């Protein structure tokens, strides 16, 4: 109950006209940078950071976090409308969001995405309000073996998802691991796969790959198919927004499960990307409409969005309490904390309760403000799809390349994005799944670091992954998820030899 009193105090801090104004400005700016792929939340927040030097810390963090929420929502918008995820964590949203948009259901997809994202975020914030002290202690139990187990869990829940052949999935995942390995290696301190290109020193940015694979690859396909978007005929009606809101309770199981997955991954530092993929994987496995996934199933939008935002907001807590940022954006904000004269760490809660609880209260308010504002933008964004492809196509190309350039300001990245575009096109033509590549690219190097650190700690013995209850449980769940579909496939083959839908 002590937390509750502090929270009310926090609302007192956050609910001033000035702070609510800042939230609205932040959310608005966030939507703008989120919609431009490549610009994204980390860049947006670091652009805004100098402006906050003269503000007081509470106002400054409210502005920056609101921008972060806005950018997350903006990122989902481009995933759904153009198949271009603005953030790694919104990749899973493209799987069903984009097909929905192509079928003329852009309004429904956007509304569902925003509402479930808002729901996820609120669950995440409630969790950290209630459990703040426990969560910080729990996160301390995680070391490299536990990290590896969490990443393994994310990979495992994704195995056997696509309709493509398992071999193609492995090829795609292998390529993803290779791309993730480029650049300076943490464990050995050496350079890998840079072939003397200075531009590859910092590795291949995930965003460049995604802009190419999804955005440019998709455009090439569209051009080949005769220059049209199927969504053109879609009429945009405000009524659709309200109708979709009314359908939301139907997905309550998915919402709750995804929020739980998201919170879990946010606290165990798996992060929003792992959360959204895992939640999508589970939703598909447990759904009664498995076949619909990948073809525009609303549940496939609800699941990743809820988990993404639940993880995003519950991850703020470990950052504040431990001083370890969970994402690139969080790292920029942490840098901000130091400049404003605050030290992130366990003592922040004791020393600056007004700041911490003001921030937590602003997360409630900021998300509500963000959901209302993005819902209001839906008719605008959905009507973009009514513009003829001959006009919007070139605009998307320009936006893609501007996005690719803004990631690091390097012309080299433009070529890289183009190359990934060709790869994306070929993948689609040859029916290779792109998602495993993306997942491996985002989590591959982290999983690798965690595995090698574990091996250094245990001096080469694999038994470290069974050395305590926590890591053993995680590994067992992971193995069950990984081997489950294989076993059921085998059993299915034995049972009915002609079974064609063996790949779940």
């Amino acid at each position: 109950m002590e937390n509750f009193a502090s929270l009310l105090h926090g609302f007192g801090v956050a609910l001033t006209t000035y702070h609510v104004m800042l939230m609205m400005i932040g959310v608005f700016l966030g939507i703008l940078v989120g919609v431009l792929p490549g610009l994204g939340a980390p860049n947006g927040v670091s652009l805004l950071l100098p402006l906050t030097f003269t503000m007081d810390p509470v106002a400054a963090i409210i502005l920056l976090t609101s921008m972060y929420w806005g950018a997350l929502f903006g990122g989902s918008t481009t995933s759904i409308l153009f198949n271009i995820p603005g953030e790694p964590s919104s990749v899973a949203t493209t799987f069903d969001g984009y097909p929905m948009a192509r079928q003329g259901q852009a309004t429904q997809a956007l509304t569902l995405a925003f509402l479930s994202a808002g729901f996820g975020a609120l669950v995440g914030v409630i969790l950290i309000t209630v459990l703040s002290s426990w969560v910080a202690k729990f996160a301390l139990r995680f070391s490299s073996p536990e990290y590896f187990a969490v990443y393994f869990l994310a990979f495992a829940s994704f195995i056997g998802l696509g309709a493509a052949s398992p071999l193609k999935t492995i090829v795609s995942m292998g390529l993803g691991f290779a791309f993730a390995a480029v650049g300076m290696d943490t464990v050995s301190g050496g350079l890998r796969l840079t072939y003397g290109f200075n531009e590859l020193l910092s590795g291949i940015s995930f965003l460049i790959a995604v802009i190419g694979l999804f955005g440019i690859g998709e455009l090439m396909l569209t051009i080949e198919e005769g220059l049209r978007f199927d969504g053109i005929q879609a009429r945009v009606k405000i009524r659709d927004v309200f109708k979709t809101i009314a359908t939301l309770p139907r997905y309550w199981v998915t919402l709750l499960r995804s929020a739980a997955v998201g919170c879990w991954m946010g606290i165990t530092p798996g992060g929003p990307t792992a959360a959204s993929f895992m939640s999508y994987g589970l939703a598909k496995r447990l759904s009664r409409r498995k076949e619909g996934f990948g073809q525009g199933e609303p549940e496939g939008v609800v699941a990743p969005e809820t988990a993404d935002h639940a993880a995003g907001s519950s991850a703020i807590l470990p950052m504040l309490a431990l001083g370890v940022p969970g994402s690139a954006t969080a790292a920029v904000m942490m840098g901000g904390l130091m400049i404003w004269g605050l030290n992130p760490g366990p003592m922040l809660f004791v020393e600056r309760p007004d700041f911490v609880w003001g921030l937590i209260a602003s997360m409630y308010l900021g998300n509500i403000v963000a959901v209302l504002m993005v819902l209001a933008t839906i008719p605008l964004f959905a009507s973009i799809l009514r513009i003829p492809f001959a006009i919007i196509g070139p605009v998307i190309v320009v936006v893609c390349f501007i996005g690719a350039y803004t990631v690091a300001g390097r012309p080299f990245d433009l070529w890289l994005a183009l190359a990934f575009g060709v790869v994306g096109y070929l993948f689609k033509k040859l029916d290779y799944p792109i998602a495993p590549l993306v997942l491996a690219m985002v989590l591959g190097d982290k999983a690798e670091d965690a595995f090698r650190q574990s091996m250094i700690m245990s001096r080469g013995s694999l038994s470290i992954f069974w050395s305590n209850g926590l890591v053993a449980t995680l590994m067992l769940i992971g193995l069950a998820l990984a081997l489950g579909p294989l076993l059921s496939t085998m059993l299915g083959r034995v049972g009915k030899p002609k079974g064609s839908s063996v790949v779940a």
Partner: protein
Amino acid sequence: MLKISWLIATAIAVTYGSMAQADWKPAKPVEFIVTSAPGGGTDNFARVVQSIIAKHKLMEQPIVVTNKGGGSGAEGFIYTKVATGDSHKLTFGTNNAYLLPYVAKLAYKPDELIPVAAMALDEFLLWVKADAPYKDAKSYIEAVKAKPDTFKMGGSQSKDTDQTLTSLIQDATGAKFIYVPFQGGGAAGVQLAGGHIDSNTNNPNENAGQWKAGAITPLCVFSPTRLQGGVKVTATMGWSDIPTCKEAGIPIDQFQMPRTVWLPGGVPADAVAFYADILKKVSQTPEWKEYIERTSQTDRFLTGQDLRTFIASDDAKNRKVFEQEGWIAR
């Protein structure tokens, strides 16, 4: 007539030219290149300098900060090297500026950059978990020596300052650690607080929060003198109560990391002097003192010949460790 006007024009040009030379000023926005990711120690350093320059209006032109932290910062230094002659690019780093090319094959050499200033020295301490049975550095080292290759020392990155210092400690005492590289000092700090490693050599700033919370405790500082700051951090100890490692029985006089600022090669000497002067002014502001105190670094402003001497000796010291450990890339 023509000749006279030509003479006048030349005269004006010469006067202006020499004036501009004597009093060089940036003519367009200045880019601050940060050789670490956002949120890292170098990032904080550069952004604090930026915020002080903005607050005291020390420069007319605006400042744009860009992070080029790829390859442990090599990305930023190569970017600086390529910008030869561009006086509007100021690069922020540590001793990684001249140490990185030893351990990896990179497309720049340290002498292709011009050192402008070193503004602070970051300190290294030996930290253990607060509830560990070691009350001083000596008893900890004895425990490590009794069971070689079982104690885990965590640090940031590989073949970087933390691993260099670990190697120096091993040489000086005969103890043997398992060195575990993490992505950054923050992660190494949390791993120690969680009891997953036995010690780390973090900078004060990276571990201060966990120390204050009573999760970990410092044993000694690798500095020739004790740290400044009489205020108590915990109930019983403040920064100045931490013994130097030499006092505590580890024979290493000094291991510090300079926070450095660089310009590309081929820029006019006046530009170097201009930035050195601005940075000097920054280092005299109360905000800078506050940053130094908050991060418990040592305030030391070096420029010109002093800086070059410092770099040469730091370079030689580190090189010796690299050679001995076989880290030099060929």
